[in-house]
């Protein structure tokens, strides 16, 4: 096919430049990434090496990691002192999460932490062949993802915490705020497994409070505005959000549609209420991460084994409401929620 000898030099040059590009970028990146290479020499006795894979960058997952470190500290493992952490963000690509998990398993780390479902699945697949414990967090349905056999008795190398939304408490609150409402509109992204499974749960809970659930799936951010509009057209009395990354990132589009129709939006996190939602009974992701960190700490100490460590779930949540929205919509705060945390619209979501 190709005959020129000059090609040989070009090929060699290409290989050289590729290697250079690798090392050059790596050099500048090394400082930014959380000390994966160091600490091996200065580590004290009893120190551990763990890897953490975070699936993508969103505030709730970032908070999970923050809490995770705090929980480990509570159990006596301090980052960069007696704990080396190789933290990797998969940037929302499963192929990257897989490679990260495989490398961590290969390096025989003492434990792999995984934040969000896809990361947990990559970690589990890589770790189970090597018998390395996996501690996950922000996985809404670990049983459906087959990470554990049951929440009480995982029976596998994995355990951790689940971020199932406290839905019953949320629906109860919606009923208290809107005594006459009939339909709850749900905007969810079809590719986010948490949203789909949460919707199924909500459909079971809602009839107990005489609500009908109207779901509207969207596939990307450009569809959020029209999806919200479609729900308004279907005559919903309010919106309720899940921890759906796509919807939460485009909260303003949803709020615009709802505000125009004069109906309230219930959030799933405090941040959303500060961004203009009416109220929510929400999970504290930092606290969730902290509980997860404690589980990881106990496993590292050898005090617990993943196969019989209960998966931590946050069933009760903290109610919070936005006084600005209450007055714009001319609602009254129900007596049961008079003592809930109050906030105002502080920022655009």
């Amino acid at each position, binding site marked *: 096919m190709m005959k020129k000898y000059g090609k040989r030099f070009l090929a060699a040059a290409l290989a050289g430049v590729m290697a250079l590009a690798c090392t050059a970028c790596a050099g500048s990146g090394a400082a930014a990434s959380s000390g994966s290479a160091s600490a091996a020499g200065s580590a004290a006795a009893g120190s551990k090496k763990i890897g953490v894979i975070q699936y993508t960058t969103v505030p709730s997952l970032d908070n999970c990691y923050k809490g995770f470190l705090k929980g480990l500290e509570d159990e006596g493992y301090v980052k960069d002192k007696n704990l080396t952490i190789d933290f990797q963000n998969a940037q929302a*690509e499963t192929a990257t999460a897989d490679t990260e998990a495989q490398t961590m398993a290969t390096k025989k780390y003492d434990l792999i932490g995984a934040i969000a479902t896809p990361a947990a699945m990559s970690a589990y697949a890589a770790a189970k062949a090597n018998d390395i414990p996996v501690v996950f967090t922000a996985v809404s349905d670990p049983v459906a993802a087959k990470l554990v056999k049951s929440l009480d008795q995982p029976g596998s190398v994995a355990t951790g915490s689940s971020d199932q939304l406290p839905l019953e408490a949320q629906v109860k609150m919606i009923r208290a705020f809107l005594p006459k409402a009939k339909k709850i509109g749900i905007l969810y992204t079809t590719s986010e497994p948490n949203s789909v499974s949460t919707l199924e749960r909500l459909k079971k809970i809602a009839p107990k409070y005489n609500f009908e659930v109207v779901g509207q799936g969207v596939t990307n951010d450009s569809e959020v505005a029209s999806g919200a509009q479609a729900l308004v057209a279907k005559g919903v009395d309010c919106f309720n959000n899940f921890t759906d990354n796509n919807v939460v990132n485009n909260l303003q589009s949803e709020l615009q549609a709802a505000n125009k129709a004069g109906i309230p939006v219930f959030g799933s996190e405090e941040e959303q209420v500060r961004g203009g939602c009416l109220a929510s009974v929400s999970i504290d992701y930092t606290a969730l991460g902290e509980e997860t960190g404690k589980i990881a700490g106990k496993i590292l100490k050898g005090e617990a084994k993943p196969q019989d460590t209960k998966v931590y779930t946050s069933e009760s949540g903290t109610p919070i409401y936005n006084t600005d929205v209450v007055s714009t919509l001319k609602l009254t705060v129900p007596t049961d929620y008079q003592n809930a945390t109050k906030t105002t619209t502080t920022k655009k979501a």
Partner: protein
Amino acid sequence: MDIFLGLVQVVLREGFIYGIMAVGVYITYKVLDFPDLTVDGSFPLGACTAAMLITAGVNPWLACLICFAAGAAAGAVTGFLHVRLHITDLLSGILVMTALYSVNMAITGKKAVVSFFDMPTIFSSGLGGTLHSALGQWGWVIMAAIVCLVIKLVIDLYLKTRSGLLLRAAGSNAKFVVSLGKDPGRMKILGLILGNGLTALSGCVLAQQKESADVTSGTGMVVMSLAAVIIGVSLLGRVRWMKPTMMAVIGMILYRACLTVAMQLGLDTNYLKMLMSIIFVIALVASRFASGRRKHNVVTVDRSSI
């Protein structure tokens, strides 16, 4: 040393599995000169189909065949859109890729992530199981290598047949094919069928190896496989005895190696995509300089339209 060997295992295993896709993309991109974006959809199509079939208890090898057929069907649609309905190559790929998202969601029953841990797969039962219990992690590498190399050989053999020669001619000199009284459009469709069948098969094998499938796993597959083909062909193009399909596979292994090395050196994954693009550009430019006459990637401006 153990760690180093372990990393080699990971790179080789992933390289061979994604290498199946690289062979497919070699057919569409290099042989047919068709930038096929369907790949981003047919890869998860294979993974999702495999997940559902294996959950249903279908034999894993049979699942591979069905996945190939599913990918082939997707390729046929792209070919039909382009050849028969005269939609541009890029656009027909994008259209089918977009549609496949819905298809994949329908296959998985609206679940974005499907896991089938501890079910029989080609890596855990039969030959794969024997290899794994005898050689541990290397067993998986060998299994991936066997699947990839057998497919490469079959494709090599095919390209030597009458139909294969016509396929190659359709990419490089369509007029010649017409002069033989054959339809180059038909060969294009055939090439897309093969390419996407192999991509889906690659997704299927990967899903079986990690025992789960994700509808979003197609992101970046076009770039990854194009880069692998280009790196392979521009680095190894001078090795005369080597078949281009082998170059594509080795290109994929090198690509995965670059990625793993970058992660190992502590490169913040934020910069990973930039690094991959840089490697891609270098390989692309180098391959054009190296082959001189080749003008695949040069945009020619039609001055009459300005």
